[in-house]
Every structure is written in C-alpha cells, then in structure tokens.
C-alpha cells in the first residue's frame, strides 16, 4: 500500500511501527531487502522509510516512534488520512475516535491481511465528493459510521448473504482482545477457545453458528502471516481508495471490503446502522 501512494506522489507519509525487523518480516515485505544484514535493532518503520524514499524523492517519508495509542489528538490533526494495520480492537476504536474528535476531517482506514484473507474498513465520516455522471460533474454526500458503530450493528440485522469473513474476523478480534493477545498472535491451539467465543457471540446476536464456518476460523487461526499476492491486491485497492478520498473525486468504498483467496471473491459490504445509511 505504501508503495502505491508514494508512487502516486502524496505530499508526505509518516510511518509508525516500532516492531523490530526480524527474518520473519522478510517474506511478505519487499521493502526490506534480505542481504542488508545491518539491521540490528532497526524498526520496520525505519527500514521501510528508507526504501520508500527511493520510490519517489518528492515524497516526504518520515518515522514516528512510540505507541500509537498514546499519541494525542493533535498528532492525528497533522494528517488527511490515517491507515492502521495489525492493531487490536481497542486500538482501532481509540484511533478512530481520535480522528473523529478533530474538527478537520481525517479519513480513517483499517486493513488486515491474514493468510489468504484480507479485510479493509473505511470511515470517511461526513464525506462530500464529486463524480462524473455522463458528461457532467455532480456533487454527492455520504455518511460513514465509525468502526465502533459499525461493529455494533446487530448481526441479525445484516443481510443473509453477508460475507462470512466479516463475522469470522470479529470473532478473532474479540478473542485477541479478551485474551490480551497481540494481533496475529493466535494459533490452532486456540481453536477451542475461539469456537467457544463464537458460540457465545452467535447466541448473543441470534446468529446461526454455521454462518461462521469452522474451516474459515481455522484458516484465520493458522495462517496469520501476510501473504504477498493478497497484500498486493488489498494494497492496490486501499491505495486507490486513499487517493480518491484525498482528491475528493469518485465513489469511495463503503465501508468494508473482504477478499478471500479460497473462492477468489472480493466483496464490498455496507455495514452501517439505520441512521448512517447513504
């Protein structure tokens, strides 16, 4: 994703990722070249920053250190778009709230790539944009719910053919939250715990358990690492969405996107409460 927006020529990109570069970081991240063994202790953000600068010298790429959940609201005011990945449920909600608190509209995106699946969430708050209809340009406006609002929409209110991946991701998200895990720190050993949680959530939401297949959950538990082709696909789409949001032109995605390499389907789902439907 970063490659795409840097190539497009955005004004600046600030990276936040204090995780240290390890061998495990290499397989899906082409911004980190294996032969440069002098990483010792450099963070992901720092290494990627250097690589990204090369793609387009006109883009200012910088690194911000620290835990993003501790950053104050003023930090987010510097940006037009905030994209978070590998963040816990708590962090997602928190950062989304901070973006919404500002008088300036800051676009908010979450993106998760787990194995063969990918999920994207978009929150453009109150969004006005223009688009071309036939020969003329018309102005449109749509309202987005926050992440918290979206996931609070009762499951039984959602259409039947809703992507199963949505529910599965929410279950795993909850599980990680409840168990105090870092995102992606699950494994097949957690299977029973996850299935139990699924049962609870389904009961609370009056949703049939078959809507969240065992096989799907197992896949999400075992392949937690990012998978290059899926990242390329999601990265391309996300890049385009951010460019659309910044330029204010063209219909944006609302508000979730799911991709599953197993069936090769890419689905856009609109999960918003009744008050925020466009």
């Amino acid at each position, binding site marked *: 994703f970063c490659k*795409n927006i840097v*190539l*497009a020529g955005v004004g600046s990109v600030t990276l936040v990722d204090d995780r240290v570069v390890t061998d495990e970081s290499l397989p899906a991240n082409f911004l980190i070249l*294996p032969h440069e063994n002098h990483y010792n202790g450099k963070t992901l953000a720092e290494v990627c920053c250097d690589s990204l600068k090369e793609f*387009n010298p006109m883009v200012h790429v910088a690194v911000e250190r620290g835990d993003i959940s501790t950053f104050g609201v003023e930090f987010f005011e510097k940006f037009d778009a905030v994209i978070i990945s590998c963040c816990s449920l708590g962090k997602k909600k928190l950062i989304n709230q901070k973006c919404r608190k500002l008088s300036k509209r800051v676009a908010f995106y979450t993106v998760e790539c787990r194995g063969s699946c990918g999920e994207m969430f978009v929150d453009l708050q109150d969004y006005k944009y223009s688009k071309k209809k036939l020969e003329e340009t018309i102005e449109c406006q749509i309202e987005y719910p926050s992440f918290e609002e979206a996931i609070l929409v009762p499951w039984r209110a959602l259409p039947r053919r809703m992507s199963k991946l949505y529910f599965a991701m929410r279950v795993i998200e909850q599980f990680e939250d409840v168990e105090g895990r870092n995102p992606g720190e699950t494994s097949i050993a957690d299977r029973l715990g996850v299935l139990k949680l699924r049962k609870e959530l389904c009961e609370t939401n009056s949703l049939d358990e078959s809507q969240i297949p065992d096989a799907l959950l197992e896949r999400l538990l075992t392949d937690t690492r990012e998978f290059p082709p*899926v990242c*390329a696909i999601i990265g391309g789409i996300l*890049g385009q969405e951010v460019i659309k949001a910044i330029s204010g032109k063209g219909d944006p995605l609302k508000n979730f996107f799911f991709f599953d390499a197993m069936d090769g389907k890419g689905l*856009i789902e609109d999960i918003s409460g009744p008050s925020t439907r466009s």
Partner: protein
Amino acid sequence: FGSKLQKKLEDAKVFIVGSGALGCEFLKNIALMGVSCGDQGKLTITDDDVIEKSNLSRQFLFRDWNIGQAKSTVAASAAASINSRLNIEALQNRVGPETENVFDDTFWENLTVIINALDNVNARLYIDQRCLYFQKPLLESGTLGAKCNTQMVIPHLTENYGASRDPPEKQAPMCTVHSFPHNIDHCLTWARSEFEGLLEKTPAEVNAYLSNPVEYKTAQRNAGDAQARDNLEQVLECLEKEKCETFQDCIAWARLRFEDYFVNRVKQLIYTFPEDAATSTGAPFWSAPKRFPQPLKFSVADPSHLQFVMAASILRAETFGIPIPDWIEHPKMLAEAIEKLIVPDFEPKKDVKIVTDEKATTLSVASIDDAAVIDELIFKLELCTKNLPLGFKMKPIQFEKDDDTNYHMDLIAGLANMRARNYSIPEVDKLKAKFIAGRIIPAIATSTAMATGLVCLELYKALDGGHKLEDYRNTFANLALPLFSMAEPVPPKTIKHGDMSWTVWDRWILKGNPSLRELIQWLKDKGLNAYSISYGSCLLYNSMFLRHRERMDKKMVDLALEVAKAELGPNRKHLDVVVACEDDEDNDIDIPQISIYFA
C-alpha cells in the same frame, strides 16, 4: 499450502513476457512467493524496451539512475535482491515470429507456465497462439487506468485468449476529420495528420526525390494515379512556390497556412455547401452532428493567432535548416514581421469536389488526365531542382509529445484550436491537447498491483495442477467505482464429429514419417475427406489439381521441403499442417492442426 506445492513453485520454469508495470509487480510477487527459486526453477523475462522517466510512477523496480537502461535487466536484478535464490534470466527480445530462433521449440516445451505482462493486443494474440500450440497455461492480465482484468487460459480446460475479441475501436470517418468535425477529438486528429503531412511526410518525400531523382520520377510515372500526382504536387510546392530560404519566408508560409486552413478552405466549404444547402433527399445538409463553420479573420492582436504563426514558422524553419532568430518569442517583433506580408485575396471556386461520403478512405480525387498532369509536374520539378544549392536536403520532423520546448504540441494545439474556433467547438489547453493527441492512457500503480496479485493467486492453482475449471477465477475490476467482479473461466468450444470430439487445444499426431496418401487415408478412416493441405501459407495439396495426384506417394516432410521450401532445422522432429476436410455430406469440418513426426 504445504511443502509439496512450495517445491512445485520453486522448480517452476516461468516465462514473463514484458517487464513494464505489470512485469515489475509480477517479479516482486514471484520473488516473495519463492517461484523459480529452486535448483530446477528458472524465470525468463523479456522486454525490448528501455526505461523512461514517465515509467517510474508505477514501474517501481526502476529508479532515476536506471533511466536509459534495459527494463528487463534492471528489473531482474532488483527482483534478485528481493530474493537472492531467484533464478532469473533477462532478455531484450520482442516476442514474435522473428524471434522464433531465440524462443524456439525447446524453449517453449520446457516451460511450465507463461505470464503475460504486455501492453498491446497483437503481442497477446501471438503468445496465445504459441501457448495453444505448445499446450501451456497462460496467465493473462491487463490494466487501463483504474480498470483491470485477469484471464486464465489453461490447456484443455478453458477457452484461449483469442477466442473472444473486443469490438474494434471506432475511428472517425475521413470526411468528418477533413471537413466536418464536431468535437475536439476530430480537430486533434486532423491537427496530428496535418503536422505529420507538412513537417514529416513532405520533407521525407522531397528527400526521396532528391536522393534518387530518376528512380523517384519513374516510380511516380508508373503509378500514374491520384496519389502519385499528389506526391509530386507536394514536392514541387515545397521546392518551388513555397520554398523557404530565410526565416521571413517561413513566417510567410506559416501566415499563409493559417489563411488557407482557417479562412480560405472554410470559405470554399460554405460556398459549396451554403448554410441552407440540402442533401439529395431534401434534408438540411448542415444538420447535426455537422457544425456550420465560420472563417476566422487573422489579427496580430490575437495571441492565439500569433502563437500559431510562431510555432509553425519555427518548425518550418527546422525542416529547411534555417536558423531561428532570437526575437521570435517577442510578440511585437513577430507582429511586425507578419504585417509586412501580403496575403492574397481568396475567391471560392465553383466546381470544387469535397468528399462527403463517410465510407471514403482517401481524399485524393482521381481525374482522367492524371498521367498528363504527372508529366507536367515532373518537368517543372526538374526545372526548379536546378536552382537548389548542392547537397540540399530537408529535415523531416517526427512528432515528439513529451518535449515541452520543441513547439510540437504548440503547433498541434494551435491547429486544433483554430479549427475548433471555426466550428464553434470548445477549445482545449495544451496539456489536454497532449493527452488526447498523444493517446495517453493513464497507468497507475494501484490497479496494476491488484491485477498482478490476483494473477499470482491463480498461479498457485496453475502450478499445483489438477484443478478443475470451477477453481479458477477471471476478474474484472474498476477501482474508481469501485467494482469487483469475479467469474469462472469459460470452457473451450467443442467440435464433434462422429464419435470424436475435440477443442482448439487438440492436435492430432501422426508418427512414422507418413506419405501424403497415408495421411489422407488416416483421415478417411475417421470419416473425413481431406481436400486441401497446407504448410504455413503454402499449399501442399488440393484435390482440385490433377497435378497434385503425382504427390501422393511423397513423404509429407519432403513435400514441405520441396514445395513450401520449409526450413526445418536439425532439431526439428515434426512439422504441422492445416488440413481442410469435409464429411461425407460435403459439410466442412474444422479439424485440429495435425503434427507429422518424420524423425
């Protein structure tokens, strides 16, 4: 996916055709995925193009300092640094019939899968044919701005790429462009064509004459048609009436071009077809979409008029090798120079033929006495050539849209906009003109990334093998809307005959160095009467020709060598023929290609 599949990936022998935007993304993915990274694996990538600055916005394996280097080699080394175990070979050959000595039978037969990363349909069709012939999977994809599509072509499972063709792009009819434009595209197409004619073709024509006068004259005489007459008229005009020796001459030429294009021709047009003119059916001639034009009036006070003259005179001077004065960009000085000129009055003529037929493909109007006119022109040409300095040659100019200092786009925009003004069509700025005239299709990194990601997922399936049709996905997506549409590929069309059935993927194989008689009998045994056999574009046998009966006992390979003068290198063990057959009811049956093994 397990280590077995990973091993298959590592040992894969992949051919990537093209190393631009799609190619770079593919290499990145493939290096990360570990394809062709084992001892048996090999990745071959080829592209005959060189890196330009405008490529850098999405061909991200290239950097500033790579500009001018070959795309494939730079991409290959960048990919190797992502994964040092990648076995990659970079070539600079353009795929096509001419490079079949590089990409020979052995090369193709050893491949596991082919991935297209091309930018044109013709190359795609060629690769499709090759994959069809060698029965190899082809992963095809393409992008157009925010749109992209992916298509899987799997031998014996799906239809091939060439099985479905897009409808051809509509091109504006000649007469629309030449006399009846109604949008800025027509004006720009016309501008492009005039630019080429005045500044490239005519000087090149002049040079053709000057470098070999005798041959040139003979060629025109022999052709003796309207085209030849036009050629000579242009050359003569350039060397005689409109010859430029000083810069002032060039200004005069430019000013007169203005007068001709935007005043006189329009006057003639509306004289021949007045505003209230009617067609043969009584309907108004100037009904939509035709727009009724008005002639312009040249004025040195109008900056766009001045710009036109400036750009035109500069480029004219270039073709004659005349130095361009420093003061050219000062409007006042240019205006003064123009005002010194005498512009003749124009009276429209009565019986001028203007082409109105939309289906006409040429504007040259033939007349009976072309041959006589040609002789006269040649005579005049010979006369004026004597007045030329020794070794005189013109410099044809090739349109280069990206150099902002060369005045090319200035002239194109000027031509198009003045014409637009004649026809009350909204004008465009230079940048927009460049966009339309240069047929620039914006290419972006996002759709490219997505398309290649989707293809790489299919690559797993293709390399794994044994997947059924329903497992594969073709995608069409538009990131601008956004829209994502995935579908299963379509199976190939099956042809049945008797109890046999086949698809475009099948080839029938005959071994044992058969003769013509044996081949025909073999087909007869299947209930097929072969009446025509060809090798490439050469006919080896046709049942209509009695003479061909003599060939019956010749070996097929000998027929190919003797009749078709086939070039069969030492490695070749087989040759392919196309046989036209009928069944017993005289119905034509499309049969697969037949491979005849003679060794």
